């Protein structure tokens, strides 16, 4: 009999998981789509500047009207648009594949039999989803900056407040934006991962995440439910556009971080509670 149980080295497991996720065709297609979107936005704004500003949302409209000739504002616009649906959905897709999808193919069983303990398994999966979510936001931001500078010009950021930020400071604002958006995506993905541990059908996870985001958005639009609004994750998403203000207002962003942290804790707690008893 051996003394203490040996375990596979964690870095090896994490590397294997990332490698596996990055080889997945749907991951590559999603990242490619995310990279193309800012290019299309940049080109179309450069060609037909006047047609912009039709957004239903005041924050988006405000940013959109400022993008022309102000390339460093493009990442703000693109990520503000993407954080409301596209990025959370892609994060949910990875969360859906991570547990439910793996359970459907039987790959989860292979890992459990190796054995990888269930807590470790969840940690590895959460790491993979979080890393790819970050990668997705970074890809969008980097391509947006490039597309903005190339197609729209302007190495400085003219803020919503009317001031002008030098390029390096503008880049810092974009980096802050990436962090703010990523944390929101992580929060959605954490809840999606919790749903993912409860089912063998990745589609259920995606449907639940989509439905959840739509319901939260609708609830957020109903003024008589304003007592409920502080609980809605979607309420913080508009605040990511605050990075385009000068001086930088931190209230909205901080609130968004805290709200997302609550969802992260709730999501991962539920996922952990479920995965330890789940049938493999």
């Amino acid at each position, binding site marked *: 009999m051996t003394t203490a*149980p040996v*375990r596979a080295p964690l870095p090896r497991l994490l590397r294997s998981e990332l490698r596996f996720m990055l080889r997945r065709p749907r991951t590559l297609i999603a990242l490619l789509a995310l990279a193309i979107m800012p290019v299309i936005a940049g080109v179309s704004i450069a060609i037909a500047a006047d047609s912009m500003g039709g957004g239903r949302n005041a924050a988006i409209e405000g940013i959109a009207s400022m993008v022309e000739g102000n390339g460093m504002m493009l990442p703000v616009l693109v990520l503000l648009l993407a954080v409301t649906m596209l990025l959370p959905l892609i994060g949910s897709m990875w969360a859906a594949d991570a547990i439910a999808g793996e359970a459907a193919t*039987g790959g989860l069983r*292979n890992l*459990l039999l190796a*054995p990888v303990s269930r807590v470790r398994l969840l940690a590895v999966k959460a790491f993979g989803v979080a890393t790819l979510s970050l990668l997705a936001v970074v890809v969008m931001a980097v391509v947006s900056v490039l597309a903005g500078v190339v197609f729209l010009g302007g190495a400085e950021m003219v803020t919503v407040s009317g001031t002008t930020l030098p390029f390096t400071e503008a880049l810092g604002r974009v980096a802050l934006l990436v962090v703010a958006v990523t944390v929101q995506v992580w929060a959605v993905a954490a809840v999606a991962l919790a749903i993912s541990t409860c089912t063998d059908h990745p589609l259920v996870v995606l449907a639940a995440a989509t439905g959840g985001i739509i319901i939260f958005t609708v609830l957020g639009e109903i003024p008589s439910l304003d007592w409920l609004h502080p609980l809605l994750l979607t309420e913080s998403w508009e605040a990511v556009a605050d990075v385009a203000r000068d001086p930088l207002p931190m209230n909205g962003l901080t609130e968004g971080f805290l709200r997302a942290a609550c969802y992260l804790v709730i999501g991962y707690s539920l996922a952990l509670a479920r995965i330890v008893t789940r049938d493999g």
Partner: protein
Amino acid sequence: MTIDPPALSPKPGVGAGGLSGVRRRAVTHDVRADEQVNSVAGMTMAQAPAGLAARTRDLRKVYGRTVAVNHVDLDVPVGSVLGMLGPNGSGKTTTIRMLLGLVTPTAGTVELLGHPLPDGAAAALPDVGALVESPGFHPFLSGRENLLRCAAAEPRLATGAMAGAVDVALERVGLAAAAGRRYRGYSLGMKQRLGLAAALLLPRRLVVLDEPTNGLDPAGTREVRAVIADLHDAGTTVLVSSHLLAEVEATCTHVAVLHRGSVVAQGGLRELLEAGSTGLLVTTPDVTVAVNALRDNRIPARATPEGVYADLTATTAPEVVANLVRAEVAVHEVRRQRTGLEDLFARLTENDTVHHRLSDDGPADVLDEEFPR
């Protein structure tokens, strides 16, 4: 001798269904009783080595209102090749999943390589290779990539040794040539082989194979048999589930028969088969003389194509031989009538009425008392 002769008629269909099977549970514990007969048949008993590689006690799993597994006491002796037989839905896979800690039992205990599960999974599972249900691989990765992913999770495999172990395993199951192809394009048999390769990534003390020959062609089936034989020779304990009787008969030293979630018989393959036979086949040219001699001594006998069949329900094999010799019958060969595993299996599993109390909470042994006389 605990065998109830009328219940163990060698003629298929005459035995009273599952009835004789339950009786057989008692028989297998009483190995000595068969020794005399076995020496006549020229067979040696395969005595199970000491120790159990896996053990379940009173195992039970309930899904909602469905009882999947009930009161399963399974013993997998170290070094044995145990065939788990049962019709579809008899609880084979559920039992295996509980044995491997994938599913938490509703009640009962599991011990795997001396470690209680599910808590001891981290200690026990590195020494266990398993292929459970369909192999779980990803269609967009090549066979080698899929195995590398499994290898990365193997605690006993050093990072530097992963690639080598994967190649050896691929070679062993005959997939080396297709290792670079995507799993998507694999045939059912190749998928099954890859699953087998994952179970054999490194030397194991116990290998669990759930329906390993599913989807394999005859050549593939033979290869799986060869792999099982190799493992057995190397001292590895093998637990293989199947509904293919020929496969079990060809590869296993021990058998456990599951039916409707309960073990209805288990023990050494030979013991089970021998216990099911109550007749002696005598090869002789003097058929008429032999039959008459036996009948004169009140031993039921009849002519068969090769000689004489003597019923042993009221007598013993030496008695029969002595009678024949006294009658100066030329005896060329005497052997025990062997029940095919198929007959045994059919008797154990086809009579459902005996086992209708599966969902009861009472002990499974209650079945022993339920024989219609």
